[in-house]
């Protein structure tokens, strides 16, 4: 009987630089709590992807020099695929470090992820969140805005950008971003609670109450002491 882990290991025995297999093994070891192997396979996946992407790019350049446009294009596309995969590995690596509470390493992985694939929206979003924790609000804002530029439908980026805007005392922009988040996800109860808070701050108690009631309708376990006061 072979289980899926055995098959990934077999895949790597035959092809030691098989980055997709390294990534899957890293995720399996992560689930098993085997930190040593998790880290090892994340690193192996990254180095294999980078190496392969470089080889493909060089090959593409050579073909281009010989006016072999279609074949060059094929190599460049493959190189891009490798880079995209590498950025996914960095992203998963950052998730791992976040769970471990190693936020500096998570931040570094996200920066690498963005570096290799600037169009990775969720990496910009997660980096923005880490930067909020570090009170680096300008940088956090930049990354959350970038995330929205790439993927406007990401309600979480709108929501978190709204939270940044509150910290920056820009309540109008905050409201706009919360509204966008709710427009995309009308059942986003956390966002409704934040909106209720914002309305409270803006002295719009009636509106605050409306948002809080809606949030409780969607998620009954929502409880916020400050907002509970206006419910009387």
């Amino acid at each position, binding site marked *: 009987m072979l289980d899926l882990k055995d098959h990934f290991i*077999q*895949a790597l*025995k035959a092809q030691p630089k098989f980055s997709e297999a390294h990534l*899957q093994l890293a995720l399996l070891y992560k689930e098993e709590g085997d930190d040593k192997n998790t880290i090892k396979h994340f690193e192996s996946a990254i180095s294999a992807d980078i190496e392969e992407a470089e080889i493909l790019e060089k090959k593409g350049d050579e073909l281009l020099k010989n006016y072999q446009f*279609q*074949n060059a294009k094929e190599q460049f596309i493959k190189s891009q695929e490798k880079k995209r995969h590498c950025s996914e590995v960095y992203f998963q690596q950052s998730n791992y470090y976040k769970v471990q509470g190693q936020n500096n390493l998570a931040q570094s992985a996200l920066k690498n992820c963005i570096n290799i694939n600037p169009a990775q929206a969720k990496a910009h979003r997660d980096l923005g969140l880490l930067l909020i924790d570090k009170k680096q609000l300008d940088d956090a804002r930049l990354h959350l805005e970038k995330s929205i530029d790439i993927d406007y439908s990401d309600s979480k980026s709108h929501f978190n950008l709204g939270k940044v805007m509150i910290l920056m005392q820009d309540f109008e922009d905050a409201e706009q971003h919360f509204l966008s988040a709710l427009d995309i996800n009308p059942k986003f109860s956390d966002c409704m609670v934040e909106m209720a808070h914002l309305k409270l701050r803006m002295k719009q108690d009636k509106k605050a109450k409306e948002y809080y009631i809606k949030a409780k309708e969607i998620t009954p376990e929502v409880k916020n002491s400050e907002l509970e006061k206006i419910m009387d």
Partner: protein
Amino acid sequence: MSNAQEHLEKAIQIHPEYADAHYELALLLSNNSEYEKSKEHFLKTIEIRPEFSLAHFNYALLLNKMKDHKASQEHFLKAIDIDQHFADAHYHFGLLLADLEDFEEAKNNLEKATDIDQNHTLAYYHLGKLLIDPEDYEKAKKNYLTAIDIDETFKEAHYYLGKLLSGGVQNDKDGTLVERPEYEDAILHYKKAISIDKNYAKAHYNLALMYKIQDKIEDAQKHFERAIKIVNDYSKAHFHLAMLLKETGAIAS
């Protein structure tokens, strides 16, 4: 030393300018992997009969084996120059050019081979493999189908046609790049390849991928396992089988 070789050498001893004897001896030596000796006799043949297209052609094949690509090209060209309807010369020259990554010229020569010999199965097949531009999708398909039409048991042609159809990357009428996979036809050709050679691991693997896309999980698993049984260290088959197991929560047998 074979009998034939002895007789040819004797003939040359008696008549040193006997081109046909040098040529036959060169072929014999080449088949016996005695490349340097073969080369001498090809050169002598060409020296005596410079317009002997077959000699240039076979000498070009020898030079290709000896990795002297530049000289090989020259002699293929010479063979074609002497006999412009020399399909095999165009075909092998095309293959050499493809190896040297001069794909456009390779395609031209393979096309020429099929123009001259409309039953040149291998030329159609290799041309199909070189037509990777989405713009050439239909043309590639046509070449594979022609190869299969001539030789129904050509398993590689079935296999590569399956790959082409499963990708379905082509240009729309307005030139837009589209992906229009033809899964059912691809499955048909993978199955055909397997029916010709039941141990064709790559065909099992690609057939499994098709079934996976179609959510025919049991069939997919069966063919991934078959591919692995044939080639134990089939890395991609292990990987995709593992992914299948991960997605379905199953255990392989």
